[in-house]
């Protein structure tokens, strides 16, 4: 299942004496957190943080014995490589890569995606080279000196902006998630996927985006009273376009120029893209070249035949922009197996298009009991946050779930509840709870509860 060398993390703590919840009961106050707080071996969310993971017998977890005598390695005796213009990851990390997906390789190779390797990443920010991709007709090779953004239509003064002009405008910087509307569509399939976590959920990423507030440019063109929507269009060969309400554009839309401190990568819209915080990724039009203000939506193919939600009553819902509250356990997850019973830190990512995630609960017994996970501060609006909770896996079958609730009170639905709302063909906006089945061998695979 796992095509890559197993990362070192699951071996953490596994060579030590096993800790049973009963070991901790009755110990002094600092040990209270080792008490299981939910079924299946979930420990208090702060158990790892308080330095309390001493176990009876005087051993401290984290002090594994070395396999052999220390050697002084060759790299400590030879001058190393020279500085270089653009740094790259260690060759030992070469397996950490996006997973390309080309459903039409022979006829439309650029109508494709690549999945972010979620279970190889920690923290909240996605490295630029690992941000998921979704293209409708490949990545255009744009000469920034020849690219302009035109804003026209129902405006008092239609204007075009060169890239070098936009680079002189005041900017704002925000950490924001970006998620494809079709992320996690395998959760809507009739059978659980055999694919790794990245392929099931890897069309979400998170970056620090820097750009010009679109409201500044809108003030400059002066929308007329008839301007209620804007049609955003890219410069790619699909000339991909989406209609967006003006409210959003005035509220928090960016013309993004930088991603994680450097100029956008070509696959993320270089030299500039629209960025709509919390909304389905397709509306954050890449390679943006035109914003046409209009009285209503244009009803393009991408907002009728695609990116509309097929409901159980047979109707299709258009313009369902906001991405729902969601979480997924990434460590462990399908494709990232456990290497033996013992203590683990369960960890994952959570996000909501409506604002901040307020709470993530985790279950290790298929939903029979739940425990609150620790949310790593700061928890930002419309941004990935990481949650974690210690877990004592005793080596038996376990069913791991996570369930996020955001500041509006919305809670991630079970798969059954999500399915009830939609027609079988629905593939967008799936934020159903993911279940990971842990087998006694340590193998982890997707499951339906």
């Amino acid at each position, binding site marked *: 299942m796992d095509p890559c060398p197993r990362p070192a993390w699951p071996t953490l703590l596994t060579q030590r004496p096993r800790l049973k919840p009963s070991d901790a009961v009755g110990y002094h106050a600092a040990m209270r957190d080792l008490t299981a707080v939910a079924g299946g071996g979930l420990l208090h969310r702060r158990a790892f943080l308080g330095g309390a993971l001493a176990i009876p017998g005087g051993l401290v977890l984290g002090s594994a014995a070395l396999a052999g005598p220390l050697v002084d390695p060759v790299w400590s005796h030879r001058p190393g490589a020279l500085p270089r213009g653009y740094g790259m990851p260690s060759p030992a990390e070469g397996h950490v890569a996006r997973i390309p997906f080309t459903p039409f390789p022979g006829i439309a190779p650029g109508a494709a995606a690549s999945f972010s390797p979620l279970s190889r990443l920690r923290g909240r920010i996605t490295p630029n080279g690992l941000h998921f991709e979704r293209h409708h007709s490949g990545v255009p090779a744009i000469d920034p000196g020849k690219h302009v953004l035109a804003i*026209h239509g129902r405006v008092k003064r239609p204007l075009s902006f060169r890239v070098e002009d936009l680079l002189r405008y005041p900017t704002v910087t925000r950490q924001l998630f970006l998620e494809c509307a079709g992320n996690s569509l395998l959760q809507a399939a009739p059978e659980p996927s055999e694919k790794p976590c990245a392929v099931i959920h890897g069309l979400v990423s998170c970056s620090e985006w820097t750009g010009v507030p679109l*409201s500044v440019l809108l*003030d400059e063109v002066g929308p007329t009273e008839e301007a209620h929507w804007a*049609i955003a269009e890219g410069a790619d060969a699909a000339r991909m376009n989406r209609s967006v309400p003006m409210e959003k554009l005035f509220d928090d839309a960016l013309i993004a120029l930088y991603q994680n401190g450097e100029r956008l990568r070509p696959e993320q819209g270089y030299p500039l893209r629209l960025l709509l915080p919390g909304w389905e990724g397709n509306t954050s039009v890449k390679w943006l070249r035109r914003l046409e203000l209009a009285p209503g939506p244009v009803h393009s*193919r991408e907002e009728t035949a695609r990116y509309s*939600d097929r409901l159980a009553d047979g109707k*299709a819902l258009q313009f369902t*922009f906001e991405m729902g509250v969601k979480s997924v356990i990434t460590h462990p997850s399908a494709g990232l197996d456990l290497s033996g019973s013992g203590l683990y830190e369960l960890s994952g990512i959570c996000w909501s298009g409506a604002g901040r995630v307020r709470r993530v609960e985790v279950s290790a017994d298929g939903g029979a009991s739940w425990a609150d996970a620790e949310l790593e501060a700061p928890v930002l609006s419309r941004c990935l946050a990481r949650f974690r909770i210690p877990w004592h896996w005793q080596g038996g079958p376990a069913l791991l779930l996570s369930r996020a609730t955001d500041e509006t009170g919305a809670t991630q639905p079970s798969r059954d509840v999500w399915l009830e709302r939609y027609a079988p063909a629905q593939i967008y906006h799936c934020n159903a709870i993911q279940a990971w089945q842990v087998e006694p061998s340590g193998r982890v695979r997707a499951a339906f509860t």
Partner: protein
Amino acid sequence: MRRPAHLAAFLLIVGCATGSDPAARGPALGTDIDEADLAVWNIDVRPDGVGLPPGSGSAAEGEPLYAQRCAHCHGIDGTDGPAGPLAGEDVTVGTFWPYATTLFDYLRRAMPYEAPGSLTDDELYALTAHVLHLNGIVGRTARLDRTTLPAVVMPNRQGFRSDWKPR
């Protein structure tokens, strides 16, 4: 802008250029552009037909063109190509798309995949007519143009509703 007098002059220029408060939120570097300049980019077609160009075509005219330019991806009947169906029982133009104009827009915008923008307006009308004909929506000899295409009523026209509610 090294001295306040220069700054004041700069702000005055910005203020004049935008017709707004001199304390503009940006440097006001936009360049005037008009709709004629944008005609080469502005290929939007709306459901009411706004944006449709002159020209016309029929399914009969579109059939050989479809065989040549489209069938290798979509199948000769639009039902069995590797790119997914255009016609038939599945989620297709005939069963799902609410507006016939969107078909013209998308063909002109993005098709054929390997050479978008390579079809003439007459060819686009003819291919639009042929795909609609494959779905049993227009007759083989019906002529589609900027007047008749927006009048085509798609079977699933009432199948959509909007989730967007202004706050």
